[in-house]
């Protein structure tokens, strides 16, 4: 993919943090480990890079130490660049305190956006895992002469559960008529993937107008405000997407990667998902290892049984231990003869020999970072 200097990518690393409070206690949404070797921010970042976007700003809010550590200079995403490259934009508020909404956040980092030579800006969050090329979106945005283009995907929505989803109502020309935040409905819906394309010029107007009115929410003040008179278009992303909006959906999305169709949709040969290089040795399986239907990252040493599970980098599984239907994050050391099912262990958890832990599909047992059992 050649470089597209006309697009600036922005990522909100902390949007919707509170929906997965266990996992974001010490980190941002963007730095939640996912899929064996990734962090959620790898997906929007790789989508940008694979679309030729070479200038990316990451807007952080709080607890962003792990995010800084993960991203570094951006080299692993090929974003350590002289022209463009990766820019981490720490929180800063003109009105005091941490920003309140997307518009407030944008106002605070506006000098970065202004400095860019790109004419168009894409906004993404980190809570949607999908693979998307933004070039067709930009093309449609220009062709339809839209002011704002919202990217959505069709899929089953349950208002009781999907608390961070915004539903779009479109006419046959894909003009967005209505925008509903987490409505109490169920069924097949057009779900906004929280991705937006907008011209820098219009975004500047919107951001500074909002600041002068002391309003902060892009959804509420712009998308839902029919008096604005903007032409808001939808772009349908027809590929698979998974939204992380609860510990349960996090658990389910990880396990969905065990399905080969999901892996094919997310990990495409031509558009790899980039992540921080770990320099781990390949996985070593012992004499009595027994593995079924599992996704296993480099650096693991496995001597027991693992079924229907996701093991992150550098996990050790002792002899006689059986792990089923679980997500074991980086660096866990699990002793011998344990029985573990439906659990999520955060980073660097230690589990001694002979432990038994059982969760359930809807309420997986969650073990804190560095927890010892």
């Amino acid at each position, binding site marked *: 993919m050649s470089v597209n200097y006309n697009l600036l990518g922005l990522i909100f690393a902390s949007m919707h943090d509170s929906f997965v409070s266990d996992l974001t206690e010490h980190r941002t949404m963007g730095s939640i480990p996912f*899929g064996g070797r990734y962090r959620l921010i790898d997906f929007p970042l790789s989508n940008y890079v694979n679309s030729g976007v070479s200038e990316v700003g990451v807007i952080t809010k709080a607890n962003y130490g792990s995010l800084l550590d993960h991203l570094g200079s951006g080299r692993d995403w090929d974003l350590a660049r002289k022209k463009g490259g990766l820019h981490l934009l720490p929180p800063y508020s003109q009105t005091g305190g941490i920003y309140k909404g997307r518009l407030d956040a944008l106002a605070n980092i506006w000098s970065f956006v202004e400095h860019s030579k790109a004419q168009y800006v894409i906004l993404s969050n980190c809570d949607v895992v999908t693979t998307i090329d933004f070039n067709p979106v930009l093309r449609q945005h220009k062709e339809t002469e839209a002011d704002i283009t919202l990217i959505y995907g069709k899929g089953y929505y349950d208002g009781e559960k999907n608390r961070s989803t915004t539903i779009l109502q479109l006419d046959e020309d894909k003009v967005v008529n209505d925008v509903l935040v987490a409505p109490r409905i169920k069924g097949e819906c057009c779900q906004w993937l929280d991705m937006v394309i907008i011209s820098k010029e219009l975004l500047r107007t919107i951001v500074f107008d909002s600041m002068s009115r002391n309003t902060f929410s892009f959804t509420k003040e712009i998308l839902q405000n029919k008096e604005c008179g903007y032409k808001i278009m939808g772009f349908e992303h027809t590929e698979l997407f998974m939204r992380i909006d609860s510990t349960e959906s996090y658990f389910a999305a990880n396990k969905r990667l*065990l399905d080969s169709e999901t*892996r094919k949709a997310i990990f495409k040969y031509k558009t790899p998902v980039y992540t921080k290089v770990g320099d781990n040795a*390949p*996985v070593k399986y012992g004499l009595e290892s027994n593995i079924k239907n*599992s996704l*296993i990252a480099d650096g693991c*040493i496995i001597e027991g049984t693992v079924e229907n599970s996701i093991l992150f980098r550098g996990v050790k599984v002792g002899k006689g231990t059986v792990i089923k239907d679980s997500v074991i994050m980086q660096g866990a050391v699990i002793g011998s003869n344990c029985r573990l099912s439906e659990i999520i262990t955060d980073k660097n958890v230690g589990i001694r020999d002979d432990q038994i832990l059982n969760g359930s599909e809807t309420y997986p047992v969650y073990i804190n970072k560095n927890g010892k059992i």
Partner: protein
Amino acid sequence: MYTKKKVVAMLLAGGQGSRLYALTKNVAKPAVPYGGKYRLIDFPLSNCTNSGIDTVGVLTQYQPLVLNEYIGNGQPWDLDKMNGGVHVLPPYESQKGASWYEGTANAIYQNMNFIRRYDPEYVVVLGGDHIYKMDYSKMVDFHIANEADCTISVIDVPLAEASRFGIMICDENNKVTDFVEKPKEPKSTLASMGIYVFSWKKLEKYLIENEEDANAKRERGESWSKDFGKDIITSMLRDNQRLFAYEFEGYWKDVGTLDSLWEANMDLLSPALPLDLHDKSWKIYSRSSYVPPQYIGNNAKVENSMIAEGCDVDGSVDFSVLFAGVTVEEGAVVNYSIIMPGAVIKSGAVVEYAIVGSDSVIESDAHIGKSPESAEKSDNWGIAVVGHNVTVSSGKSVEPKQIIGENI
């Protein structure tokens, strides 16, 4: 700019590795895959970084394309430096004309200007075809403590094997008194590992002498050579220079032949763990392939193996090393084998005691290799090898010791 370095390493990576046959048809030997995610050159490069040596010249000649691309700017090994770092040094043309590297000593001779840029005290000369973890800084310290002109790393080998190596004869202070290349009746079991530390000024002098001497011989029509072991070390011994043997203890494996490459991979599966790649204190770095974690399917049976990221395994894998992005379909069997990156083993295929090269395809019901027990005569048994980008059609077989470089 101030560029002085205490130590510069020169890595001889031009070797063809002709005894690896099909595996080095299009790639230089140091670029041969090893251990699931590495290439041979990862070991000396990572050793350099871990030893604090940040300036490395890599001398390439034979099929350098893959190797050049792999080394790139040296970033995976932390060797992308403002001053120093890794530099690939192919043969070049000068006002005197162009010439290929005519031996290991000549390769360094032709790049003396590279070394002079850094004005080093010591030059470490390394090969690119051994598997080992070694702290070169300790060897340099040993060299300094002995006020040596040249220090040669040696390893104690069984007497029965000593005649395969360059053998050092030392006094009680580890001072080398004699050096014999592949002796029929070895007087010692200390084998040279092809790793040298030289005091640069001394090396510079001997390189120039050897070059002039060899060129004069060539003009006279006499036999000549420009090699480290044969010429530089021998000349230094003749002149009573201070040569010392630095004894290395640990895992060291030459992977010069197909059998030894296979064995070196199998060593990784040994419970005795002679070489621990999971050791975080001495990581072996490699260029990453950006593929998802490996998936082990419902029908898989995976035991006692090493499997890299990006693999998709639904068959049976035992005592084997699978590199990144290998597919083993349901019903396929891989035993005691090495499957290089991107290869596909289709359903019903059997691969045993074999090496399958990168991106090769073993079609269903093909049979590669045999176990030593099943061979009629032990003389006829050996590793079966399928080269890179080769397709073995359905139902075909590759016998032990057979090497396939073209589609069958």
